[in-house]
Structure formats: structure tokens, C-alpha cells
């Protein structure tokens, strides 16, 4: 057979065979190239199976040289390059594969996942969406897509993908972990705890799962379980400083101040430069009324990490509490310098300034505080009082009215929560009418209480008022998208 070397040699061939003959010959050559490329592709796969990554890479390279449009080879080459730590090359080949064959699931999935791993969240989304379209039953593709959506702030959509992922692959521990974290973000703490527990059970070596579980348990109110989980984690991974820090924080929240001090002190012995540990130690000491030691710890935290706004803030509070007003003001200013949108710091600085008689600046700071945090009732109260001192009666009145409104709203929200609880008890006891009355009271007190609407939906459904129940549930779902429809409703 006459080979057709590139370039001028083909002209010779054409000349010798005529046009049709040349075309046929080129077809034969292409076919041979294809066969050769396929053979190299298969060789590459064999090399991969034999864990000869370099050999596999070589085979795939030669395959794509033979047949540049062989998408699958680009995909495998990308995969092997990735395994060899050549991420850029891997990405390039995945992208090429996708370009050549958008319908190639593996390429889309590999491209998306690798982009996620290289923190290109934006770039990861489209290929992962494509992967999920191509293979809706691929648990891991949904898992990665869920991660990306959560990182892009689309919590509801993330939860949906992650739920599907764990549905498809119930033992996929990372998916349970991420679903747990997502639900926690969403406000479904019960759901979060359940999935984090599953993640930790499937993969007890997952430090992240156990850390997250500890924090979620604390959030759910089960402090004992939180502490036990974190203590066990610390025992299993004594070098994991995050676990120790979380344990200390949990103990602090549970008012085991001595325990918290012990944990933070131990952590600092292992990691003296841990600013967060130093800060939390300061908090624990402050709550023990050990102000001098607290001050020292907080100052050390600031030295270790000048970017932490909370440390100068809490230091400011300690100084204020021990009547060192000027120093307290400086500390609050420092906190604000690090984080200008720190509403509490503006507020506390304003409080100190007012005590020092600097009313004008106090008013400005109070105003900033409530601008940043419009639900701060005490901010409006203090602003109103300061405005009164300035003689600005109308503005003062307006601020004080706002304070009153916010306090009332808070009080009503609490009363609403209690009414729901009482309603639940009545429903459990068979008093549906009484329960419905309580739920309606709860809604009147706080129309944005999702549980009030949700529980009303349940009670109404039980009484057969399906239409009304559905409306109640729809309202609940609008307020809390994670809620699932009760039996009989959609």
C-alpha cells in the first residue's frame, strides 16, 4: 500500500491514482488511523487498568495525535493527567472532549468536578448540569452539582440535588455530609442532624462530618450529644484542632466554663498561635468574671490575628465593664476598623461615647448601628434617647416608636412560638378545634411564623378541610421552603 506522507507526498499519490483514487486512499488511511487510534485508546485503557498511568497517558496521547477528534481519548487522557497531578493539562483535555462531544457524560462530569476541585465554581456549573442531564441517575454528578449550587448561594436547589444524590446512593457519605450542612444553612436543623449522623456512621473517619454533626447537635439543642460527639472526635483525632475548638465552644455555650477553659488552654498548649482559641479562652474567662485574665487572653488574640474583629470588640466590653471607658472606645473603634459593618461595635462605641458626653458622635454611631442592623431594638431606643438629649424631639419620638415596634414584634414572635407549641399539645390530645385556635392565634401574633401555618395545615387536613389546609401549607412553604407537605397535601 502506498502510504501518503503528509504534505507533498499526497500530491504524488493523487497524481498517480487520480482524484477518486486519492480520496479512497485517504479514506483508507483515515480508517487505518482510526483503527490505530482506537487501538491506542484500548491500549491506554489497558494500561490504566494495570495502573501504569504514564503508559496510559502515552497511549492516549498517541491516540489523539492519530485522531484529534477522539473525544473519549481526550477525556481519558485528561483523567490520567489529573491522576498524575497535571491538573491544567487535565482540564484542557476535558474541555476539548466536551467541545468535541458535548453528549459525552464522562467528559462533562470530569470537567465539572475538576473545575470544582480547582475552585472554579462558576466554570464547574454548566458541565455538571450537562452531566446530570445526560445521566440523571449519577449520584456523584448530582453531589458535585449540589456543592456548586450551595456555594453559589442557591441553597434550595443545592438541597434538591443532594437529596437526589443520597437517594441514588444512600451510602455516599460526602453527599450526606453536604446535605446536612446545606439543611443547616437552610434552617432545617433536624434534617441536618439526621444526614450528618448518617455521614458519620457511614464514614467514621470523616472528621468534617463529625465536626459538623457536633455543631448541628448544639444548634438543635442537644448539647449533651454535641459534647459527646466532639469529645469522641478529639479522642480519635487528638491533633485535630478544629475539633478541640468546637468542643470548647460547645462547652462554653453549655456554661461549662471550667471545661471550656481547660479545652482552650490545652489547645493553646498544642497550638500557641491559634488566635481563635485565645479569643474563646478570653470569652470563657470573662464569663467566669476573671476580667484581668480575660483581658490578657483577648489582647493576645489580637496580637495573633489582627484581622479578627470579635477580639477587640469583646476586649472593649471587658474594658467597659471594668469602667475604662476611653480604652473601651478605642477597642470598639479597632473592631470597626476591621469590619465596618459590625453593627454591635458601632452600637457599643456609641454607648460609651454617650456616657462620655460625646452626644453628636454617639448619635451618628447609633444611626449607623441601626442602619446595619434594622432589627436592633436597643439601637433605636438608645438613638431616641440620644436624640432627645440633642433636642431633636420628633426624630427621637420616631426612633423610640421604632424601638417599641421591634420589641413588640419580638415579643409577639415568642408568643406565637408558644401558641404553636400549645396547639401541638392539644392536637396530640385530640383537641383539634383547640389546636386550630392556638395556631390561628399564633398566626395573628406572627404572620411570618412558618410552623404556625404548617401545623394549621396539618390540623385542618385532619379535619378534612383540605382546601384550607392546602392554602395554609402553601403559605408555610413560601416561608420555609424546606417543609414537606403533610399527608394528603401536595
Amino acid at each position: 500500500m502506498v502510504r501518503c506522507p503528509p504534505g507533498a507526498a499526497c500530491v504524488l499519490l493523487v497524481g498517480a491514482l487520480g482524484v477518486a483514487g486519492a480520496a479512497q486512499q485517504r479514506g483508507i488511511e483515515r480508517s487505518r488511523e482510526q483503527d490505530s487510534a482506537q487501538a491506542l485508546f484500548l491500549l491506554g485503557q489497558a494500561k490504566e487498568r494495570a495502573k501504569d498511568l504514564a503508559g496510559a497517558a502515552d497511549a492516549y496521547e498517541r491516540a489523539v495525535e492519530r485522531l484529534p477528534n477522539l473525544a473519549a481519548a481526550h477525556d481519558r487522557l485528561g483523567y490520567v493527567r489529573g491522576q498524575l497531578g497535571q491538573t491544567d493539562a487535565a482540564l484542557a483535555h476535558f474541555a476539548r472532549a466536551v467541545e468535541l462531544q458535548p453528549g459525552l457524560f464522562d467528559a462533562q462530569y470530569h470537567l465539572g468536578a475538576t473545575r470544582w476541585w480547582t475552585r472554579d465554581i462558576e466554570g464547574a456549573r454548566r458541565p455538571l448540569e450537562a452531566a446530570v442531564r445526560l445521566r440523571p441517575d449519577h449520584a456523584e454528578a448530582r453531589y458535585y452539582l449540589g456543592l456548586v449550587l450551595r456555594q453559589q448561594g442557591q441553597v434550595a436547589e443545592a438541597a434538591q440535588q443532594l437529596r437526589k444524590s443520597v437517594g441514588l446512593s444512600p451510602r455516599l457519605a460526602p453527599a450526606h455530609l453536604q446535605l446536612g450542612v446545606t439543611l443547616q444553612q437552610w434552617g432545617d436543623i433536624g434534617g441536618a442532624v439526621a444526614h450528618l449522623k448518617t455521614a458519620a456512621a457511614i464514614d467514621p473517619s470523616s472528621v468534617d462530618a463529625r465536626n459538623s454533626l457536633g455543631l448541628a447537635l448544639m444548634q438543635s439543642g442537644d448539647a449533651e450529644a454535641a459534647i459527646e460527639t466532639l469529645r469522641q472526635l478529639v479522642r480519635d483525632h487528638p491533633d485535630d484542632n478544629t475539633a478541640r475548638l468546637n468542643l470548647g465552644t460547645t462547652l462554653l455555650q453549655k456554661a461549662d466554663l471550667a471545661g471550656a477553659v481547660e479545652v482552650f488552654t490545652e489547645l493553646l498548649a498544642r497550638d500557641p498561635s491559634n488566635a481563635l482559641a485565645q479569643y474563646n479562652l478570653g470569652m470563657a474567662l470573662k464569663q467566669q468574671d476573671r476580667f484581668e485574665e480575660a483581658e490578657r487572653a483577648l489582647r493576645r488574640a489580637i496580637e495573633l490575628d489582627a484581622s479578627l474583629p470579635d477580639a477587640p470588640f469583646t476586649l472593649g466590653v471587658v474594658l467597659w465593664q471594668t469602667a475604662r471607658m476611653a480604652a473601651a472606645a478605642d477597642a470598639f473603634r479597632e473592631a470597626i476598623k476591621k469590619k465596618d459593618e459590625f453593627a454591635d461595635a458601632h452600637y457599643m462605641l456609641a454607648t460609651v461615647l454617650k456616657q462620655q458626653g460625646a452626644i453628636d458622635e454617639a448619635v451618628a454611631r447609633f444611626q449607623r448601628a441601626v442602619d446595619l442592623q434594622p432589627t436592633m431594638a436597643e439601637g433605636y431606643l438608645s438613638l431616641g434617647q440620644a436624640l432627645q438629649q440633642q433636642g431633636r424631639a420628633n426624630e427621637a419620638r420616631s426612633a423610640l416608636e421604632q424601638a417599641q415596634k421591634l420589641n413588640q414584634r419580638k415579643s409577639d414572635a415568642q408568643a406565637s412560638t408558644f401558641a404553636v407549641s400549645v396547639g401541638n399539645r392539644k392536637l396530640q390530645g385530640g383537641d383539634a378545634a383547640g389546636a386550630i385556635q392556638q395556631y390561628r392565634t399564633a398566626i395573628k401574633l406572627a404572620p411570618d411564623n412558618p410552623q404556625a401555618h404548617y401545623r394549621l395545615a396539618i390540623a385542618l387536613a385532619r379535619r378534612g378541610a383540605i382546601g384550607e389546609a392546602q392554602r395554609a401549607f402553601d403559605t408555610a412553604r413560601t416561608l420555609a421552603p424546606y417543609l414537606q407537605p403533610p399527608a394528603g397535601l401536595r
Partner: protein
Amino acid sequence: MNRGPAYHTPLLVITAVVWVVRAIDAPPPVAVDFSFTENAKAAGLNQFTVYGGTRTNRYLLETTGCGVAVLDVDGDGWLDIFLVNGTTLEGFPSAKAPMCHLYRNRRDGTFEDVTTRAGVGQGGWGQGACAADYDNDGRDDLFVTSWGQNRLYRNRGDGTFDDVTARAGLMNAKRRWGAGCAFIDYDRDGKLDLFAANYIDFDLANAPVPESGLCRYKGVPVACGPPGLPGGKNVLYHNKGDGTFEDVSVKSRITTAAGTYGLGVSTLDFDDDGWTDLYVANDSNPSTLYRNNQDGTFTDIAVVAGCAYSQDGKPQAGMGVAIGDYDHNGTMDIFKTNFAGDTSTLYANTGKGLCDDRTFQSGLGRNTRWLGWGVAFSDLDLDGWLDLFLVNGHVYPEVEQLKTDFGYRQRKVVYRNLGDNRFEDVTDLLGPPVTTAKAGRGAAFADIDNDGHIDIIVNNVNDTPDLFRSKAPEGRSWLMVKLVGRTSNRSAIGARVRAVVDDRVQVQEVRGGGSYYAQNDLRVHFGLGNAARVNRVEVRWPNGMEESWTDVPVNRILMLEEGTGQQRRSQ
């Protein structure tokens, strides 16, 4: 009972005055020259106060505990003690139901239980008590608040009391949660009226419960409220002078207070205009300062005056209240006990209708672990400066499940007044029994043994009471003044007394209520240091008349009757 104050202590100041403050370095206190012993049992005060569950409390109803009143039942000049009692959710067979107790002072350091004969052994969810001579017959009467029906007992003068609640027009239309109370002559007609705070409009059937998981303290399920529960409305009864009272709560505008969930109550003349005002420590709400408008009405000026919130504008869980002129500027200052995780609050009265929160500047901002109830300003070392004695105990017995620095039972705290607008914590120096942990609630401050030293009776929860006898340094003098009104109300509640020794002036008042759920000694006490005589005792009677007595000897109980002194002027 604020559940979980923020990690920074909340405090608020409203003042036009610029304070120059210096750093509080917390030097260790010097040795303390006064002391306490405790001998309630030996004295015969053996009531066991039953109040709610001992390990868990399902409802807030089981947490408030009971009060104590001191009163002179038999008019012998020695104060007797009334201890309120409570019950449990499960209740008791009637023969075994706990009851309040009245103890007659035997004048030898011991007391005799005269409850049954006296007819004041009520049961139920007793709360506070206050005492005074409401019918001006020369005998101290008694008012007891309850979750249920408050009761007025008229002293017959023979060691027995008559329950005149219904006859007096004091029956509630529905169950109410009476809390701290005080007799007060708000209209200066010479007859004592009656004020009672109301805590929560509490309905057991519709109250949330701990197992709902909604109410947690440091992660442990506890009784819910008060935020989220409907607040009670305070009540004021006008004494009509014929043995009956009229409910003037709405007419007098006391129901328009900004805050609710009232607990500790005390009378005081905040603005020194001769008309008695009222302060109510509210739980989780701005506290209330009812200014007497002199026309039968009150205005709640606490928010405007700066006596309602913490320095940083937050409502606190106020429990007990102490009134006194701690800084010798002639005005009545206010001290309030609060929840754990928060400081107590010291509102200095500027004399211009404003409170200046000086908690931190005075050195009182260093204790946040204790949960305070009964409290009083009292000159414990007789140096002429008012000290502070606080009774503590946690709200939730469930706190015993936690590994905390504090516990359910807590120490008392004693602050010694340094005489320079600051206090120092001398509790550790005093040691037991002050540092002995108890679940304290109501506390009455009185000179039980007429020795010139103020004693303290504490009503502990699910425990027997404490009787703290104080002992001041030898050689320090004192004066106790008992005022007897003639045109003014006989108990002289609302009277202002000034003791002048050379260039030093101390100002005191005769007050209704005080502390937490308590009635303190109606006699006015002055510590006088090493003074040999008091140059002048000046009295402004509740009806406005002013008199003085000169060259008064010390170390005695001086009874002054209205109209027998040298008249100064009438208001």
C-alpha cells in the same frame, strides 16, 4: 428572667453629666470589720418552704419562691416574722398542705410559731408579703400575694388576724399572679393604700412546657417564659378609710406602664417632692418607675429617666429592688438584682429627675455569675455608708445538670461601700454563712433583736429559712427611728428622715415593700461611725409637715410622733 443575655453585659446610661472615671483595678479588699452568724433553726424559724419541684420545674410558677415580712404583731416594739409558703403542682392532702407561718419574737433571740392561733396559715402558691397599719389602729396588718387570691389580714390586736379580703373589696375577678407588694399613701390622705405588682397572666392549661424543646437554658429544657407569655397588670387599691378599698388601677394610670412581668416593689420619693413614688423591678422588660403626679395618677418615667434598661439599652431580668442614698447626695438611688450572666444595676439618682447607671464605675459590674433576688442597702458596718447585701439562687433547678461555676444554690454577695461612690465585694472575706450556698429568694432586712444592727431573714426555696445576725465593729454608734404618724398614715410610710451629724447628713425613708417579695423594717436605721450624738433629726412626714429634733443621743431606738417635734414647715 432573661434567658441568656448576650455575651456582653448590657448597660445603659442616660445622663447629661460627663463622668470622669478611673480604671477599676480590682485590688483585693481590705479586711472586713463586720460579720454574720446564722441561726434560724436555733431561733425557732423552722418553716420548710415548699415551692415547686426540687429537681425540675415544669412551669415558671414553680420558680419565683416566697417572700417574708417583718411586722410588730403585738406592738411590743420587737419585730415578728411572717414567712410565706408555697406548694407543688401535685398538691398535698389538706391536712399536710404547707402553710405560711407567723413567728412571734420572744425578745430573747428566739421565736414562737403562733400561726394557727393568729389565723394566717394560708396555703397555696404564696408569693410576697407586705405589712403596715392600713387602718391606723396602731397595729401592723398584713397583705399576702399569691398566684391565686391575694389576702389582707387585719390585726385584731390580740395576737390574731381577721381575713378581711372579701370585705375589703380585694377579691380578684379571676386568678392573678400577685407578686411584690407595698403599702403606700399615694394621695396623702393619711390612709395607706395598697399596690401589688402582677407577674404573668398565667394559665396552666395554655402554658408551654419544657418538653416542647422551645425553652432551653444552656441547652437544658426549662420552664418557659416570661417572654412570650401574657404579662400581668399591676394593681393599685385606694383605701377608702372605711375598711374597704377601691381598685383604681386604671384611673391612676398604673396600668399604662411600659413594662410588665413585675416582681420586686418598693416605694420611694424619687423626685423628693414629698409625694411617694413606686419602683417595680420587671423581669425581661423595662423596669417601671411610677412618678406620683400628685393628682391621683402616676406616670411611668423609667424609660425617660434612665431607670428602666441596662446601660446599653436592653431590658434586664429584674427581681429585687433596694432603695437608699448610697452616695450621700440626698437623693434616693435604686439598686436592682438581675439574672445570671448579667450584672446587678445601680441607678444613681442625679436629683434632676434622671438615673445615672453607675454599675461599672462603682465596681458593681464584676459579678455576673449570681442570680439575685432579695437585696437591700444597709449600713452593715455602721460607718455611715450604705452597703449592699444580695441574696442569690438560680431560677432553674435544672442547672444542677450542668457543670457550671454557679449552681442552683448560690452564695450571698456583700458589697461594702467605700465612701467614694465605689463598692468592694467582701463576700469571700466574710466567709460562711454568707458564702454558704442556698436557693434564696425573699429577704427582709430588719433589726430583729433591737441591737442596732440590721439582720436579714431569707426565705429559701425547698429549704428552711436563714436568719443572719450581723455584728458591726465595737464602738460604732447607730440610731433607729420609729415614726408614728398622727395626721399622716400611722406607719409613716413615705416619711423622709435626715440625720445630721456635724457636716454629714444621711437621708432615709420609711418605705413600703422593698427587696424581693418582702417588707423590711419600717423603722429607719442610721449607722453613725463614732458619733456620740446626732445634732439633728429632721422628719418630713408623708402629709408634708416637717419637724426636727435636736441633740439626739445615739445607740437607741427613738420613737418620734408626728407633731411632737420642732416644726420646720409644711408642704
